[in-house]
């Protein structure tokens, strides 16, 4: 068994293995058994989940108060395209899992291609979403008015989906930086894993926006 001085020097999985016989809270060791960078990302994700919860709550609050909430999304093309966007994000999460998988197994050459595949999924999402914004704006929607019903729809829609798009864009840049650093041997498997946590979280948020904003506002024919 490692002595306490050795344990204090250890980080990551080795620390958790060496300290199993010691109290987790004895000091000098991590009670969570993860690197501090990863804990930092987890704490950011928790705080960011509260941000998105507040935005989704604001959307639900105003919608519940409204007697005339717009239903601008037709099954074709709006819902079909947003389903494709969901597919892009879910699949990019799978390619991210593959990048982490290969990074942890030391398959150096396979990490960057999977990170690029993940970025392509994110970019496809952004292009499709940007096009959807363009169509809505051309139909006369602004944050303050829209041709279909309650004016608040535009403000909540653009804020919620805009915030999410900003996160996807940030994620694509983040993955690009991490991929470049991996290629230059300046990042390790933990860095890839942490960028993966962020990416999966952005995917997770969309799993709430897609049903609550799109699927709950499907135009069933007969006007808006």
């Amino acid at each position, binding site marked *: 068994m490692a002595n306490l001085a050795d344990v204090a020097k250890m980080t990551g999985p080795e620390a958790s293995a060496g300290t199993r016989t010691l109290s987790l809270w004895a000091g000098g060791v991590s*009670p969570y058994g993860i690197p501090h960078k990863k804990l930092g990302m987890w704490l950011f994700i928790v705080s960011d989940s509260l941000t998105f919860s507040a935005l989704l709550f604001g959307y639900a609050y105003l919608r519940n108060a409204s007697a005339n909430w717009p239903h601008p999304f037709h099954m074709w093309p709006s819902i079909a395209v947003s389903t494709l966007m*969901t597919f892009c994000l879910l699949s990019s999460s*799978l390619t991210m899992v593959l990048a982490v998988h290969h990074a*942890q197994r030391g398959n150096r050459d396979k990490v960057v291609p999977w990170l690029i595949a993940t970025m392509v999924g994110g970019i496809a999402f952004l292009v499709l979403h940007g096009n959807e914004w363009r169509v809505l704006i051309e139909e006369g929607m602004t944050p303050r008015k829209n041709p279909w019903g309650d004016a608040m729809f535009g403000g909540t829609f653009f804020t919620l989906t805009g915030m999410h798009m900003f996160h996807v864009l940030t994620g694509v840049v983040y993955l690009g930086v991490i991929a470049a650093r991996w290629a230059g041997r300046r990042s390790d498997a933990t860095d890839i894993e942490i960028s993966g946590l962020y990416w999966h979280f952005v995917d997770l948020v969309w*799993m709430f926006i897609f049903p609550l904003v799109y699927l709950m506002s*499907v135009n069933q024919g007969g006007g808006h």
Partner: protein
Amino acid sequence: MAAAAHEEAHEPVGMRVMYFVWIWLLALTVFEVFLAYKQVPLHIMLVALMGMSIVKAALIVAYFMHLKFERLNLVLTLIPAMVVAILLLNTFFPDSARLGQLAIFR
């Protein structure tokens, strides 16, 4: 021992499970779209969609984000407080019914 623990920490699940989770996420998404297509009544729709969204979120957090395989310490630090904070937002929700009575929203 350290090497074995390293394996355990980094490789608790194979890729097979991850593909399986991905297929489940896609299947739930398709079912959600199907409900929208079938024009299910709004309240049933809301409960069904939120239920499936929570299942999907749990799958992503547990498997893709690996939380199922982290120490319980970490899970208990992150998740319960977050869930309580999110649920507390609902304190304000009944007020939206009052807002609905105001002329500005009619």
